[in-house]
């Protein structure tokens, strides 16, 4: 129990620190929120321009939920990169904290931050376009967000390895990975329009299933029972990717300690 309490306290350390950082960088937070809001509005206005209510919904869901997933992904994937830039990586790695506690703290804050960010954008867009969500299955959409978050956390953990392995290029590679997920996951279009090989790749992105499930739940009111085809890949990815991410992170940390890559650069 004492160990668990210590690890929970350590996880909270990362939540509290990230909250303090958000407060201190409040100007940037406002700027990012305005940019995300403007992006979501701009994309969704394409649907209004086409006069298609379904397209408005589809684009809005793509913009909002991609924002949610990419915020979670960035927060976790850039955990190491931030510490490297600030020069605190060695200090954190020296602390008597298990790595899963560190990643749990970063993940919980990422989810909380992304939820608040996304909820704000969702409310503004619903009001802006006067959308009627009375037929939407909000519970199913929430389940997809929750299950999808777990699988995205696993991918984020594996992406966080890159800045450990590659001192300078790691953060760039993380950014490229996020861009690829955006391209192949059918964020603003159906994956059917992608070339065959990209459609195959899209099957390995949790975002594909999350967006498909959320669209069906919010636009058509389909319940979770009828969306099992989208749920099980997310469950499998969640179960597999988080332990895999933790294992890979541990391996990467040992490699970084063997080769001296934890050291501050710049």
């Amino acid at each position: 129990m004492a160990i668990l309490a210590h690890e929970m306290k350590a996880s909270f350390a990362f939540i509290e620190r990230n909250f303090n950082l958000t407060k201190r960088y409040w100007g940037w937070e406002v700027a990012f929120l305005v940019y995300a809001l403007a992006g979501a509005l701009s994309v969704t206005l394409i649907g209004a321009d086409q006069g298609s209510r379904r397209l408005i919904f589809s684009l809005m869901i793509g913009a909002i939920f991609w924002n949610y997933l990419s915020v979670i992904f960035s927060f976790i994937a850039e955990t190491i990169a931030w510490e490297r830039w600030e020069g605190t990586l060695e200090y954190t790695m020296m602390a008597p904290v298990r790595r899963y506690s560190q990643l749990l703290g970063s993940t919980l804050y990422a989810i909380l931050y992304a939820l608040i960010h996304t909820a704000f954008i969702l409310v503004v867009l619903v009001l802006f376009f006067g959308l009627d969500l009375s037929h939407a299955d909000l519970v199913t959409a929430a389940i997809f967000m929750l299950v999808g978050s777990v699988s995205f956390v696993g991918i984020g953990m594996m992406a966080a390895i890159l800045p450990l392995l590659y001192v300078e290029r790691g953060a760039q590679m993380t950014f490229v990975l996020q861009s690829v997920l955006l391209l192949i996951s059918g964020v603003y279009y159906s994956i059917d329009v992608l070339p065959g090989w990209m459609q195959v790749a899209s099957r390995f992105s949790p975002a594909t299933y999350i967006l498909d499930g959320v669209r069906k739940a919010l636009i058509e009111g389909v319940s979770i029972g009828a969306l099992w085809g989208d749920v099980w890949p997310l469950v499998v990815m969640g179960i597999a990717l988080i332990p895999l991410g933790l294992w890979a992170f541990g391996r990467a940390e040992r490699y970084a300690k063997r080769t001296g890559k934890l050291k501050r650069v710049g």
Partner: protein
Amino acid sequence: MTATLTPQPKRTDDRARRIVLLPDRPVRPGDRDTVVGERLPVPAALLAEGVTKRFQVERKKPPVIAIAGVTMRLDRGEIRGVLGANGSGKSTLIRLFSGLLTLDEGRVEVFGHDIVRDELAVKRLINRVSVDAAFFKKLSPLENLAFAARLYGLDARRAKRESIEILGRLGISEKRVGRPIEQMSRGMQQKVAIARALLTSPALLLLDEPTTGLDPRSKLDVQGFIADLRTTHDATIVLTTHDLDEADRLCDRITVLDRGRTVVEGTPTELKALVAADHGGTESLENVFMTYTGRSLDADVEEDADDDTTERR
């Protein structure tokens, strides 16, 4: 060339290392702890045996040896100075003791805990202050210290109270503890780094050039605080420095490294006398440094290429 002025420590038996915990008082010569009716040797505060670290710098070339077979033993409460030219392996040695680098050969124990097998136990006992104060610079000293306190499992309210008290002793007033660290001078930042290390009450404190680049006033403040650490906090300290006066004043014993190897070890008085007797010249640590590293301190400092050029590559 290796000159050791004291006998090398004997390895404690495995059973003793398993059950002897951190003693609650300073170790004295000939001291013993009694555990379950048995008399067992008190473990060294830090024991390094045959520590070796290599880095593969270029693929088709043999690895560069950064640390080669370094052995040292520190008793509780000792301040050990580690001197050496840039690139001699001082910072690499500190990183090996911190668990930030893995050992290629040899072993390290902190108060009887093996640094590999008992990693978490060792982490709870040590802390490190490096040459560049590593903080989230937008956060305040108090926020950075609160983060450290939680990582080390300290009670948040108590930690806040102690943080303010420690920072106050270091000359950082309560009205400044809430401002971002980026607004502070380098000397102040270094004091916050020391306060952070102190907050976690480390039994072994690793100070990697803590006074490098500080103005004379800040340097004196930090040096005074290091001296206090031993008496008030019963800490064992490893101190790497380029300031030979600092080493002379603060350190009980000094180890000089050259190209990753220990070339001489002893008390400052012993080293100065040894070099003056064997090589002539004045009894000074600069003379010791020049003799055993084969270069002048000024030339060394001017290079200012961190110890870890090898690591960075």
